[in-house]
């Protein structure tokens, strides 16, 4: 049962990811990312991270992606030219990404870490619940929590500044005859 859930989520996430990279129309890419995010939320659930899964769907897929959709609609589709100005990019990029994947896999699979290579310890009942997350946020990770809040504030102000229209200046009146 677990395996089915895992593979379902994995295939969903992977296909969403590939679709994001491969699709020409950026609007379709956005939608593909949404699919990816939801699949990822499912994977989180299999890992007993209920709160994070919910946050993923509500915040990420719900709010951030909606933002993307708005901007994609506003900006419209950008036709990317076929010609690649950087020599070798089309070949080297997949190559290096693949190399990176291989290396990371080797690192993971060949590791001597004891915690990997099993399902992990038995977890208590409230693992991943909002209650325990909340406790952590307000006790151990209070500073991180507050810093993240400030970051959000700064980002919001920054976004407003970036997108503001320039106001028309009133004409200067010259005194005298």
């Amino acid at each position, binding site marked *: 049962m*677990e*395996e089915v859930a895992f593979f379902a989520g994995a295939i969903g996430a992977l296909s969403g*990811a590939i679709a*994001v*990279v491969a699709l020409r129309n*950026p609007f379709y890419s*956005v939608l593909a*990312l949404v699919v*990816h995010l939801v699949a990822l939320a499912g994977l*989180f659930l*299999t*890992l*007993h*991270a209920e709160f*994070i899964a919910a*946050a993923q769907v509500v*915040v*990420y897929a719900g*709010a*951030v992606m909606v*933002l*993307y959709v708005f*901007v994609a609609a*506003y*900006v419209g589709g*950008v036709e*990317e*030219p076929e010609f690649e100005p950087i020599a070798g*990019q089309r070949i080297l*990029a997949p190559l*290096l*990404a*693949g190399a*990176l*994947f291989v290396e*990371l*896999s080797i690192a*993971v*699979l060949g590791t001597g870490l004891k*915690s*990997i*290579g*099993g*399902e*992990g*310890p038995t977890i208590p009942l409230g693992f*991943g619940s909002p209650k325990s*997350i909340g406790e*952590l*946020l307000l006790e151990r*990770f209070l500073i991180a929590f507050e810093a*993240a809040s400030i*970051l*959000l504030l700064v*980002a919001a102000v*920054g*976004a407003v500044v*970036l*997108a503001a*229209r320039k106001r028309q200046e009133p004409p200067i009146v010259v005194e005298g005859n």
Partner: protein
Amino acid sequence: MAIEWYLVLSALLFSVGAGGVLVRRSPLVVLLCLELMLNAGSLALISFSRSIGNEDGHVFALVVMVVAACEVVVGLGLIVAMFRRRLPLNIDEMRELRG
């Protein structure tokens, strides 16, 4: 499922995202690929958190989500500003770093 499945999946998603950043030219799609990479990271965090047995990874993943959101806000604001000024939405056009 053993944890390494999740970790390998996370590595795969990360690589796909990295390749996407390098290959696509539209800034919007590049941001999307960056999202992919960030989420892959979150997946890895959650997996480790499960294998260790406490929820520190969950909090970390939450903060990653916050940061991603902020980054998206600013990035999209930049894209909108570029669009408003009729600049070409193509990363290759921004070559001021050329030496």
